[in-house]
């Protein structure tokens, strides 16, 4: 346990937590934007028009086939070069996470609605509900119940993906960790072990409860 003090001297722990907050904030913004845009994408995938559906499908597949880090590079380096618009690292990160997240949410929304059997629509209509009532009371509640566990799961994936943004220079928890390690190189040569272990634990503490919640909701639904 030699050298673990490095986490607690000065304001090191506070700085790490500050860095963690950057990670969490970027994730939260991206998740919120992804859900809003993803619902649109999902709705577009459910329309009758084949061309619209095909465009959505292509969007989702294109996003999926490339590693997220490649997209981050394309937005951070490529778009800047092509258009002359200079994104900050954080903006590029939110754009990448949202483009990716919206595609995933869109696909989840689509499958949540498609998993509702046709007889639910038919019985609703035959009971004399109009379309608005049908969706408010019959379809949305069921779709939502199927959707929420997947959305929580996707959120943990997005939080984990946020760790990549240190690679385009955003000062988040990994970068702060690196700074602390460098600053304490001589007094605490073992700093890297403890700092990265701490960051490891931080991610776990954030993602694990969400995973549990998602699993619990899935199970509850299966019963």
């Amino acid at each position, binding site marked *: 346990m030699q*050298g673990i003090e490095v986490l607690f001297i000065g304001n090191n722990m506070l700085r790490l937590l500050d860095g963690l907050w950057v990670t969490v904030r970027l994730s939260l913004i991206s998740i919120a934007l992804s859900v809003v845009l993803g619902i649109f994408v999902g709705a577009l995938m459910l329309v009758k028009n084949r061309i619209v559906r095909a465009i959505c499908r292509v969007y989702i597949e294109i996003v999926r*086939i*490339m*590693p*997220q*880090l*490649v997209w981050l*590079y*394309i937005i951070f*380096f*490529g778009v*800047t*070069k*092509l258009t002359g618009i200079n994104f900050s690292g954080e903006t590029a990160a939110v754009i990448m996470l949202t483009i990716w997240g919206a595609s995933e949410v869109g696909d989840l929304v689509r499958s949540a609605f498609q998993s509702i059997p046709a007889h639910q629509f038919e019985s609703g209509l035959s009971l004399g509900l109009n379309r608005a009532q049908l969706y408010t009371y019959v379809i949305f509640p069921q779709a939502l119940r199927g959707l929420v566990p997947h959305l929580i799961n996707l959120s*943990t994936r997005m939080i*984990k*993906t946020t*760790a*990549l943004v*240190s*690679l385009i220079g955003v000062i988040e928890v*990994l970068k702060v*960790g690196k700074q602390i*390690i460098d600053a304490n190189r001589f007094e605490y*040569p*073992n*700093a*890297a*072990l*403890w*700092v*990265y*272990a701490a*960051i*490891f634990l931080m*991610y*776990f503490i954030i*993602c*694990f409860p969400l*995973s549990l919640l998602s699993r619990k909701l899935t199970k509850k639904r299966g019963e």
Partner: protein
Amino acid sequence: MDWSFIEKYTPMYVEAAVLTVKIGFFGIVLAVALGLICALVKYFRVPVARQIVAVYIEISRNTPLIVQLFFLYFGLPKAGVLLSPEACGVIGLAFLGGSYMAESFLSGLESVGKIQLESAESLGLKRWQVMRYIVIPQAASVSVPAFAANVIFLLKETSVFSAVSLMDLMNVAKDLIGMSYNTNEALTMLVVAYLIIILPISVVFTILERRLRRAGN
């Protein structure tokens, strides 16, 4: 597009792509082995080992690969464990992938109904025969879609290796952008390289899944 630039640096990309595929391959093979062991431990409810596997799966699934790699590459040497970047890549990918593979295998194993096991046993099949002839063939075909998704997921995760100074595709692209400002060319080649690696695998798996679905009906 500056074609002479592309021509000049294509060999670098090829080299990096080969490295990416190599580490991806070994990492995924190890992940499959690890996932198989974990799935069997959970399926047969091996005491103690089952709890260890459960903890491992949670840790591996709830932390990002890049943090796992940083811990392996920068952290562990301070505890006396020195790993080369290549070893870190393989171990990191296996550590991450093992849990995902375990869950896909386990869902396959558990999809085989109890009634089948009981029928097989009452027909006088030995335990290993039940596994060999009844459980594994059915479990395998159920596991394929999740398995395929995991392979592609893990191949994409290899892009993170650049963070532990492996000269992979991401690093080559980043270096070229930094050195020459030929951003468009460097990024286009990066995208093409990943497409060449991932697209064929994705297509093969899609065909395989479709055939299995037909076999299931």
